[in-house]
């Protein structure tokens, strides 16, 4: 999950340099440091819709950019719901159905487990520098942090969001805030990193808040705990057989 791009927006670079950097360099630092070799974590998702709060918990594993697995543990209704990402494919397993289904096409646009994240958001895995032309707009202070303000505009056709605006912390190289825009220029989503921690050689975002700007009064907060990075995850986790196990 971590390596999925939902974390990418929040990615980080260890040591900031004070010298002038190009926009590409800044994003490359964010990009490069996003990718952890592997990860293991527990997560808690707080979904708020119109003031009603629902909480969900899941455990996740990832390996490189291409493999990820998550399994919901709470609430009881969602227990046993699993997701597996292998390269570009996303599979979902519902215990009641007892079979994995592939999430593809227009279904990817839909909300993941009722949250503000879409399946697309969790499955995204390309590096930003490969997808976007990047322009450094400004420097701004956001929540007491010195930030670069960057604008990313798609240079290839196959991207989820046509443009993004990112506020990157000058010292930590963490995307403190990201705005995601549709091609029409309409703001669709806003992601903010509310907490990050030093874990090994990474400064890792451990709490993010996603707001679907097309709807009123909704947000999803995702908080990670027990994060272990660069640890070995057994290969069998990332298989259909493991996904469909009883």
């Amino acid at each position, binding site marked *: 999950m971590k390596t999925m791009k939902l974390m990418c927006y929040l990615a980080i670079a260890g040591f900031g340099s004070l010298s002038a950097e190009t926009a590409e360099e800044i994003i490359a630092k964010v990009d490069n440091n996003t990718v952890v070799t592997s990860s293991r974590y527990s997560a808690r998702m707080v979904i708020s819709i119109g003031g009603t709060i629902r909480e969900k918990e899941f455990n996740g594993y990832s390996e490189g950019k291409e493999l990820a697995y998550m399994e919901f543990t709470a609430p009881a209704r969602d227990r046993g719901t699993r997701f597996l990402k292998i390269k570009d494919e996303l599979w979902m397993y519902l215990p009641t159905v007892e079979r994995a289904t592939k999430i593809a096409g227009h279904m990817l*646009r839909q909300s993941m487990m009722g949250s503000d994240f879409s399946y697309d958001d969790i499955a995204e895995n390309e590096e930003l520098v490969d997808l976007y032309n990047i322009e450094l707009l400004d420097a701004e202070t956001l929540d007491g942090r010195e930030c670069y303000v960057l604008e990313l505009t798609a240079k290839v056709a196959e*991207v989820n969001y046509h443009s993004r605006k990112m506020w990157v912390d000058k010292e930590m190289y963490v995307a403190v805030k990201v705005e995601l825009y*549709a091609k029409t220029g309409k703001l669709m989503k806003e992601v903010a990193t509310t907490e990050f921690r030093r874990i090994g050689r990474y400064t890792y975002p451990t709490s993010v808040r996603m707001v679907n700007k*097309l709807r009123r009064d909704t947000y999803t907060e995702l908080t990670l705990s027990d994060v272990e990075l660069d640890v070995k995850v057994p290969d069998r986790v990332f298989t259909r057989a493991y996904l469909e196990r009883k």
Partner: protein
Amino acid sequence: MKILNLAWRNVFRHTRRTIITAAAISVGLASMIMMNTMMNGMDKMASRNIIDYETSHLEVFARGYYREEGFFPLDTIVEDPLSLTEEIKQIRGVSGVAPRVKFHASITNGIDELPVLGVGIDIEEERKVFDTPEAVVEGRYLEQNGDVLIGAGLARDMDLEVGSFLTMITRDRNGTYNALDLAVAGIINSGHPLFDRNAAVIAIEEAQELLAMEGAVTELSIRARNENDLAPLKRELSAVIGEEHELYTWKELSASVFEISGFKRAAQFMIALVVVIISAVGIVNTMLMAVMERIPEIGTLKAMGFRKSGIMKMFLYEGGIIGIFGSLLGCAVGILVSLYLVYVGFDMSGMFEDMDIGYPIRMVIKGEIDPRMVFYVFLFGVLVSVAVTLWPVRKATKLEPVDALRHV
């Protein structure tokens, strides 16, 4: 002739018995006709809705586009609709061609988000091929970019009215998110659930922009001058559209709808069959009684030199006469009820308020009488009456005249 005369008199000697038997036949037949009228009406309505709102008479897609109903890929599309449209318009049997872009999307009013079928239409050409403009029950038809028509069901579910704003969310041909603010220009109530429940109709230019289609469309809908015989037109069109496109008639595109209807017809037939069996048992019963009552009479006839076959003929004539009366009565009642269904209709709106019956019909169903069916039903009634007379009569004619005369 003499025998027929005798049979005729016999029938009217027992007026009450004749009436009861005839009534038993007529109830069965009337209900068969009524059900048939209803089914025909539903099928006709479904066909009209599909032709007038969904497919028109024929549709052209890029080859490989049409794999299953309800699946709208954006990777197999008609890249150059303009020149193709021109070529199709040259054909004499074509009265109109309208391009459409169909796509998966969702709309949100800021609170709820619901999946919809996005339909991009050519505002002008649409009029020549579809009845969409006439289906607008509130507000107005599309006039400009930024307008959207939504189905009445969708409007109700999302609390939208004319003038409300909504955001349409979709992914373009490359998978990039796109969102568009639209104002509800009109509300559609066509009678076709596809449109009334979950469609959002916008101008085709806007849909193409939204989906990065670069002038391409998903389909061209063709209206024929003569809708009763599409086969020659289909052949003519097939020659024009070229290898990279495929062509289907509305019937082929809605095969599954009529498959459902086939099942319904089978079910209807079974019900009718049960009704007929019940009335046939009634007829057997009365005929049996009639024959039993008249065994001494049969004995007298035999004693007077009547042949077995003559007696048999007489009873069969009687059965036939009663059958004709019963069938006439049944057909008359059936047609009367059917006429009510044709002109007034049967209101099912209460029954299906929130139910999607998967069948494109309006909630007031109007019947459609099939004269051929009425004729068959009539014939059926007469034949059954004659056939069920056979058995009791054969039994009676086997008796010796002496035994028959002594029979009480």
